[in-house]
Each structure stands twice: as structure tokens, then as C-alpha cells.
């Protein structure tokens, strides 16, 4: 059985009845209409195919939780349909129905029962649940003696003990200590590799980039964008800035090399040129060697008087993970009272200790440490360069470490 999800024209309105008696009467007399309707979700359509991992992102109040409730069926849609196939597991909150006076084992029975599993199934899964939680003796102790992290370990183990066809997750990947976070993330990833369809609702854009094949951006109860992770996530970032800066515009296009360029900003300061230079020769390059001395040079043109100018950089790898980033606010090099017509040149020399691969540079011209206050110009993936390894021994990863093995050999017993 394959897990699929089809959402068609889904909408949810909360109704105001004026008085509760009118509401009760409406159950028996359908002609009684509500006084007011407040739509929190409208005309939402999308599908999740078999084996697909889809992320849902959006700001608070965008309708993510409502969408989840509608899909899992805890509340019913006002319009439209939700069609699910396969065994569906929805984890909207961990530790549902846990009782602090019961032991971890008893709570496991109870909680798994609440998910609809039979006694025999739970018994069969029990050793696996106990092993995955890794809380040792505590598993047979009352849950009130647990730390909150231990509770979450048991909760996550129970919730994911049974492999579904479609897994719906709401912000539950970051539970427990970092060891357990890795472990739980790994379990989800293994589910995905086994062909389980996944719908992940999260605020962690990093999780979305790593886990999802597709991302849907919800805004004000509507699907704003549905596409590849980098495209939607960058658009979302630009959108967050837009909330703060009313006259800001967002444009997006995919470059020939596959990187997605997202540009937003109010335009008081603009990037005129951005170059990567070889320090020795002063020539512009697009391919750097591991260890080469290079320099990022950005010229910003100023189109209005601005009190403070800060430049921020982000260097990303092909998967979209930020490899390095900082800004001149953190380095205490804020440019003050920049006048219209000036050109500000920022030079950033560094040793290219990146690993072989393709990297992008995203500059942001802002006024403080975030782009939320004044976003003059923010361009995701404006420039792309490749790093190749010519001189060093072969290594993998996004960082070159100046590390060498030291090896010694001894015969046992003759120290």
C-alpha cells in the first residue's frame, strides 16, 4: 500500500453564531445561518504522491495547524475534500495521553492503544520501543520521575514505532538532547528512504531543506508557493522581510547553473558588482582551489541617504546549508551616514578552506544585524563559484581542516 494525500479546494471557516442557542438549533434546523464566517483556510489544493516528502512552511497564523487538523481529521473542513490512502500516522504532539503515575511501559500500551493499535501489535513492537528510547531502568518507573527529555524519548519511540505509509509530522523532530535528535531525524529519514510519504510542518527551514523534495508555503490561509525547497524557502525568507518593509519587492529566477536567485529589498542601497578575485594576480575567478588566497569584493551603490549600512554574507553549499556567514554589524564595521551617490567597496580576503564542490554567495545590504528592520537589498545566490582540490590529499566535506594523521605501530606486550 502506498501513502498518498490529495487535498482539493480545502477550506475552513470558524462560524460566529451570535448566540450558542442558535448554534444548537442549527444542528436540527439547517436553514439557520451563522452570523459571521471567518475563513482561516481557503482554496487549498495540493497532492503528496507516493514516497514524496513535502514540507509545509509559513508564518504563525498562516493556517498550518488548521490544515494539519483537517488532514488528520480531528476537525472537519467547511468545504473541499481530503483524500488519504494507506496507513496514516499523524504525530501532532508527542506524549498524548501519557499519565505521570504510570510507568513508561504502561504509558506505551496506553498511548499506542490511543493510536488504534491492538494489544498483540503493541506487544510485538514493545522491545523495539524500549530499545529506541534508551532510557534503561527508567522504562519501568513512573513517568513523573522522568526528565522532560526522557518523556519525549519514550513519546517519540511510541509514535514512530509502527511504520506507516504516510507520516504527518508537526514540529516534533527537535526533541530531547542532540544525540536523540539525530537519532529521531535518522528514523524519519529511513522512513523516507523506505518509500514512506512524509508531510512535515515545521519552522526549521534547515529540516525542510534536508528532508523534503518539495515545499509548500502557506500564507494567510492560501498556498502561496509550491515548488522545490530552495525556491520556496528563499521566497519565504524574502517574504518575512517584506512584512517589515512595505515597499519591498521580491523577484525570483532560476539561473542556468541551477541556482535560484531571489532578490528582495527597498533599493536604497544596491549591489553594483560582486566578484571573487584571486589575491595573487588580482584576476576575477569562478573556480578556486582549496587553500587559495581569494577575496570577495562587493561594490554597493547608494541611491538615498541612509544612516547606517551593514553588509552581510552567506556562503551556501549545493544543498543550501549555510557554510559560513557574518555581517559587518557583528564585526563592528557599521558604515554610518552614507550619502546618496556614494559607492561603498567591501573587500573580504580569506583563505579558501572550503571542500571541493559548488558554493553560492548571498549578500545582504541592511541596517542592523537582521534583515527585518531595513532590507535595502538581499540577493540569494547572487554569485556562484566552484572549489576544486588540486594540491591537497583527497578529502570529503565542505571544510578543509589542516589535519594530518600520526601513526605508530607497536607489538602487543612490548610497550
Amino acid at each position: 500500500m502506498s501513502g498518498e494525500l490529495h487535498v482539493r479546494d480545502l477550506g475552513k471557516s470558524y462560524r460566529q453564531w451570535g448566540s450558542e442557542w442558535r448554534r444548537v438549533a442549527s444542528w436540527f434546523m439547517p436553514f439557520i445561518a451563522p452570523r459571521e464566517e471567518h475563513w482561516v483556510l481557503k482554496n487549498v489544493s495540493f497532492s503528496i504522491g507516493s514516497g514524496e516528502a513535502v514540507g509545509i512552511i509559513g508564518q504563525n497564523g498562516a493556517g498550518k495547524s488548521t490544515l494539519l487538523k483537517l488532514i488528520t481529521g480531528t476537525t472537519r473542513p467547511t468545504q473541499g475534500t481530503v483524500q488519504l490512502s494507506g496507513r496514516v500516522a499523524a504525530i501532532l504532539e508527542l506524549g498524548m495521553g501519557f499519565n505521570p503515575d504510570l510507568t513508561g511501559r504502561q504509558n506505551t500500551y496506553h498511548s499506542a492503544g490511543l493510536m488504534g493499535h491492538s494489544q498483540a501489535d503493541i506487544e510485538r513492537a514493545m522491545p523495539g520501543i524500549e530499545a529506541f528510547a534508551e532510557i534503561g531502568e527508567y522504562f519501568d518507573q513512573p513517568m513523573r520521575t522522568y526528565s522532560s527529555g526522557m518523556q519525549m524519548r519514550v513519546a517519540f519511540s511510541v509514535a514512530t514505532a509502527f511504520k506507516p505509509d504516510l507520516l504527518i509530522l508537526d514540529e516534533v523532530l527537535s526533541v530531547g538532547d542532540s544525540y536523540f535528535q539525530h537519532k529521531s531525524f535518522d528514523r524519519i529519514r529511513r522512513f523516507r528512504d523506505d518509500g514512506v510519504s512524509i508531510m512535515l510542518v515545521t519552522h526549521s527551514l534547515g529540516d525542510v531543506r534536508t528532508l523534503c523534495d518539495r515545499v509548500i508555503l502557506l500564507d494567510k490561509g492560501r498556498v502561496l508557493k509550491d515548488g522545490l525547497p530552495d525556491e520556496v524557502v528563499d521566497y519565504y525568507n524574502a517574504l518575512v522581510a517584506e512584512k517589515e518593509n512595505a515597499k519591498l519587492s521580491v523577484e525570483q529566477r532560476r539561473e542556468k547553473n541551477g541556482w535560484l536567485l531571489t532578490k528582495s529589498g527597498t533599493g536604497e542601497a544596491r549591489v553594483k558588482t560582486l566578484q571573487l578575485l584571486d589575491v595573487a594576480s588580482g584576476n576575477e575567478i569562478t573556480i578556486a582551489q582549496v587553500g587559495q588566497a581569494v577575496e570577495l569584493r562587493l561594490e554597493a551603490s547608494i541611491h538615498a541617504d541612509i544612516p547606517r549600512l551593514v553588509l552581510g554574507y552567506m556562503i551556501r553549499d549545493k544543498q543550501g546549508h549555510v557554510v559560513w556567514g557574518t555581517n559587518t554589524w557583528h564585526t563592528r564595521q557599521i558604515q554610518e551616514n552614507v550619502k546618496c551617490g556614494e559607492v561603498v567597496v567591501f573587500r573580504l580576503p580569506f583563505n579558501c578552506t572550503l571542500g571541493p564542490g559548488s558554493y553560492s554567495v548571498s549578500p545582504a545590504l541592511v541596517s542592523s544585524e537582521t534583515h527585518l528592520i531595513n532590507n535595502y537589498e538581499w540577493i540569494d545566490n547572487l554569485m556562484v563559484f566552484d572549489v576544486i582540490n588540486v594540491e591537497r590529499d583527497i578529502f570529503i566535506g565542505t571544510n578543509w581542516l589542516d589535519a594530518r594523521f600520526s601513526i605508530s605501530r607497536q607489538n602487543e606486550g612490548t610497550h
Partner: protein
Amino acid sequence: MFGMLIGAWRYRYFILSSIKTELRVKFIRSRLGALWMILNPLAQVVIFAFVLSAVLSTKLPGISNRHAYVIYLMAGILGWSLFLEIVNRCLTLFIDNGNILKKLVFPRIALPLIVTGSASVNNALLFFAILLIFGVLGHVPGTALIWLPPLMVVNVALALGLGLALGVLNVFMRDVGQIVPVVLQFVFWFTPIVYMVDIIPEQYRGWVFLNPLIPIITGYQNALLYNHAPDWAGLGFVALVATGLLAFALVLFRKASPEMVDQL
């Protein structure tokens, strides 16, 4: 309606384990454990017995045993406590379980079934405790004891119908949760539990049939004290009322379900 039953059947393990859990939790933290479940109604019996029998020295017509009043009280309280527990717990059932209802999909009918199950077990424990006290007092109930199960069934149906309907309304109008306990106090005193039905003045006797609890409670008293069969006509009428109420409550529950989660 059929779907509800199928859902409940699929979740039978959960329902059973929840009932077990509720009982277990009561045992775990307190030293007397389950004793508390029966001590509360028994304390009520002791109070009434002392105040009314010893202080006010009420006489029971037609009973020779000097402990007759205590037995009479216990029979009434046995029926009343089952009714009360189910109504009270159903009243706040959906509000108490709001978080689970919002976050998990499961047959919601399981919740009242769990309440019914655990209340019935509690009541059975109380019943055995009462039998024990009967023995100590030298009263041996007769064969009319076999009428107790059908009485319990009617009692549960009535309580569940009433409790479920009120519980659904309570989600939307929280005043219901405040009014009902007050009303239940009146119902307690308008039901012949601590007094005899004959004491009611002649001019109000006609109103008595409006209280559906009376045939049930007198049925308990008949079975446990007088060794009589219940008054079938009265009980049949109440069974009809209870069935109607239960059907109404289930329809209300079904109609309200879509909006209930939005209000929790």
C-alpha cells in the same frame, strides 16, 4: 450510528486498557487505593443513618430488622452513586479530554464508553462492600437480587443519555457545567433515597412520576431490602425514556462533533 459501533470495536483494547488504567492510577498513589471509591458513598450512608435514624429516629413501616434503615439507605445510594458518577464525568468529558480530541483521531464514542466501564466497576466494588455490610448486619438479600443487573442497565442508559447530552452542550455553553451539579442536588432530595416514597404529601404524589430515577431507586430498594421484583410498568417507562434520551444524546453528539473541536 453503525460506524460508531465499529469504531468502538476497533478500539476495544484501548477502551479496556483505559478502564484498567483509571483503576490502576487510583491504586498507585494512595495507600487505601480503591477503598476510597467505596468509602465516599459509605460515609454518606453513615451520616444519613446517624442523623436520621439515631437522631431523628425515623421508623420504617413493614421492616422488623433494626438495621433496616441503613440497608434501605445503602440500596438507594448504590443506585444513586452509579447515576451520579456517570452524569458528572460525562458532563466534563469533552472539556477534560480537549487536547486529545484536538490532536488525535480516534472514535470519540470511546470516551463515554470508558466512563461507563470504570463507573460500573466502581459500582460493582461498592455493591460487594454493601453485601459484606449486609452480612455483618444480619440481612441476607433474597432471590430478587437477580433483578439488579437489568436495573443497572436502565440506570446506566439514563445516566449516559443525560450526561452525554449535557456534556456536549457544556462544550458550547460552560454554564451547563455549573448548573448541573446544583440541579443534581435537588434531584437527590426529590428522590426517595434517604426517605420513604410514602412520606411525600398526597398533593405532590402526582408529580413523582416525572422523576425517572424513582422507579430505578425503588427498584434497587425492592431488590436489596424487600426482596421484591421491580415495578415493571414504572421501570419499563423509564427504560423507554432512557432509550429516547440516549438516542437524542447520540444524535446531538454526532451533529456537534464537527464543531466541538473548534470550541475546545
